[in-house]
């Protein structure tokens, strides 16, 4: 017999095997999930969840697909959180200090409570990346926020109403497009292809009998 633990889904008690994740435990209990379930592997942020262990004051957060159940867990899912996403034109926006002031001025109202960092399901230093965004250091903001899955838990805890994941999204796009170095070999290759440099070679390959293709494939040189 599996070892069972008692958990409380939205306050209702269920007995579930102790080795399950919260997500699997909900399914074990009989939930057919529609909301609050996406990649089931910790990448999509669909299954943000809040819980408190009976007798413990601390409110904890996690991704339901990445967290094992515990005895006395009171669980509430947060399948959607109304983040503010400002619309911008990536071709027109520029990576200057003014951008954040224009699009997400609330970041300057951060009171430094660090609730965002404490609540991050990915263990990121959220308050730090907001600080980078405040001073227009988009490269640092992009790096610090890179592993964000945009689950929105940080924003749910923020007294200043900041939509941290969207601020970071803007910073990453600015960094990727404008600040990261240009790739010369990529631009060269795109031009070569447009000029038809490889056209004859490719057309030739497309016509080749399978036996000749096998020869080419099996004897090709492999870069070390």
């Amino acid at each position, binding site marked *: 017999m599996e070892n069972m633990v008692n958990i409380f889904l939205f306050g209702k008690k269920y007995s579930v095997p102790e080795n399950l994740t919260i997500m*699997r435990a909900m399914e074990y209990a009989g939930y057919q999930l*529609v909301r609050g379930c996406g*990649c089931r592997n910790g990448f999509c942020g669909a299954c943000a969840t809040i819980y408190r262990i009976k007798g413990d004051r601390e409110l904890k957060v996690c991704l339901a697909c*990445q967290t094992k159940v515990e005895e006395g867990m009171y669980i509430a899912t947060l399948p959607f959180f109304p983040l503010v996403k400002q619309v911008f034109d990536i071709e027109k926006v520029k990576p200057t200090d003014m951008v954040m002031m224009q699009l997400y001025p609330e970041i300057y109202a951060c009171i430094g409570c660090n609730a965002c960092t404490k609540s991050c399901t990915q263990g990121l230093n959220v308050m730090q990346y907001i600080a980078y965004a405040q001073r227009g250091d988009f490269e640092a903001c992009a790096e610090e926020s890179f592993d964000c899955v945009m689950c929105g838990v940080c924003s749910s805890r923020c007294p200043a109403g900041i939509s941290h994941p969207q601020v970071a999204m803007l910073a990453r796009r600015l960094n*990727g497009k404008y600040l990261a170095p240009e790739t010369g070999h990529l631009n060269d290759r795109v031009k070569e292809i447009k000029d038809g440099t490889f056209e004859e*070679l490719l057309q030739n390959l497309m016509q080749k009998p399978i036996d000749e293709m096998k020869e080419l494939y099996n004897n090709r040189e492999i870069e070390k």
Partner: protein
Amino acid sequence: MYAEQFQKSLKAVEEAREANIAYEPARMTAKEKEDLLAAYHPDYKQDEFEVLQIGPNKGDKVPKELAEMLQAHSRITSGEVDLTNPTYDVDVLIIGGGGAGTSAAIEAHEAGANVMIVTKLRMGDANTMMAEGGIQAADKPNDSPAIHYIDAFGGGHYAAKPELLYKLVNDAPEAIQWLNKLGVEFDKMPDGTMVTTHGGGTSRKRMHACKDYSGAEIMRTLRDEVLNRQIPVVDFTSAIELILDENGKAAGAVLLNMETGDLMVAKAKTVIIATGGAGRMHYQGFPTSNHYGATADGLVLGYRAGAKLLYAETLQYHPTGAAFPEQIFGALVTEKVRSLGAKLVNREGKVFMHPLETRDVSAASIIRECTTRENGVDTGAGLGVWLDTPMIEKIGGEGTIEKRIPAMMRMFGKYGIDIRKEPILVYPTLHYQNGGLDIAQNGMTTQVENLYVAGEAVGGIHGRNRLMGNSLLDIIVFGRNAGQNAAAKAKETTVGALTLSHIDAFDKERAEAGIETDAISPKLLPDYRRSVTELDK
């Protein structure tokens, strides 16, 4: 930390590590690979397949679970839906909100079309989000689209449609450039040179990455761009049946609100199926690395409306799914772990294959090691082999794992396994649908006019096996292609009277074939409730 039961084997792995790093295992010959696949690859297990009795691929074999869905009843009857008063009326209807669907939407919007996306869960709940390792493009001086073509054609067992593979490799560098211009953060050197690695079966280092969040970084950027363009996205809404017009052309879809059960009609001049893969069909009982909604819906929609499938009998089992701990059973362990130097090691601490064979060969080799050769590690819930991740730190220097594969470090770290110091246990997991709907180079299906397909729902781009990094590439290249062409086609299209008569025709064909089934399709979501899973047992 591993429990006592693993310690003996773990010790053997540790003791052999230095020697295993230095050891360069030989690659298999063409003949060795053929024999291995025939004996151990799941695609070759004849009794797991069924011959289709009805529809455009009558006489072809597909996985049993897929055959049931393809030959099943529609969720609606043809008379049940009022087609005269559509809720949505657009130029281009895109079904699916993953990488292919969003790429298509951006390009169709760019071309001036009135475009909308419907998606069963949220935009971005897709296999794209979970692609870790990278995206291929031949953009280095020692590489060329022609070499990329040879790698992919051979790796796919010479079965790819040449005109599709041509497009894939030739448009690849521009796809990377397009993503970069949208703000995707590729790993680069200070001078802008792309940091690239090998994938299984590549002959040049052309794998571009965004740490090991490559797909997530691409997906969230595309999603942000769709939102910036204010393209309508109807989420938690699935397409359950295509609508044709009186001339047999695709002209919309019947939609189902996943939460309220309401039915709606979307009318469109052209339709793009971008519904992704099928891992949640759990073919042959395999676990999967796929997202929750990967249930082959697009194949079912297209098939019932008359579109042909190509290579639907070939699936990709990713060699390295997590085999332990059980909470992440089947989750993807990116091939990049091996690109960075980790080797596959058996219970005795022996390297039993070259770590960068193609995926089908690697999966078959691991299955052989765990079955016939009895060199697998018993995890308590099954078998696995070691993937010796600490090698990466020894080869690339301390800190390489945290910098290059942070998601892997986090995933195992949550269960107390530090992959910098301890190896991990892996076993093949159902990963990718090699086959799908048959298209021409312009993205349109070969049988149904004005029906386009992009992404994992397409068959024929990769042949019978896909190389790592060619799927992120294909969703971008063929997503954009479908969006551009569907937008152009919409301009010259006048839609005739809408009809669902193909449901009746399919019902008739089923009855005449004598198939008795209660199954309805598309499946939409797997059902993991205990009452259901226990019945399965």
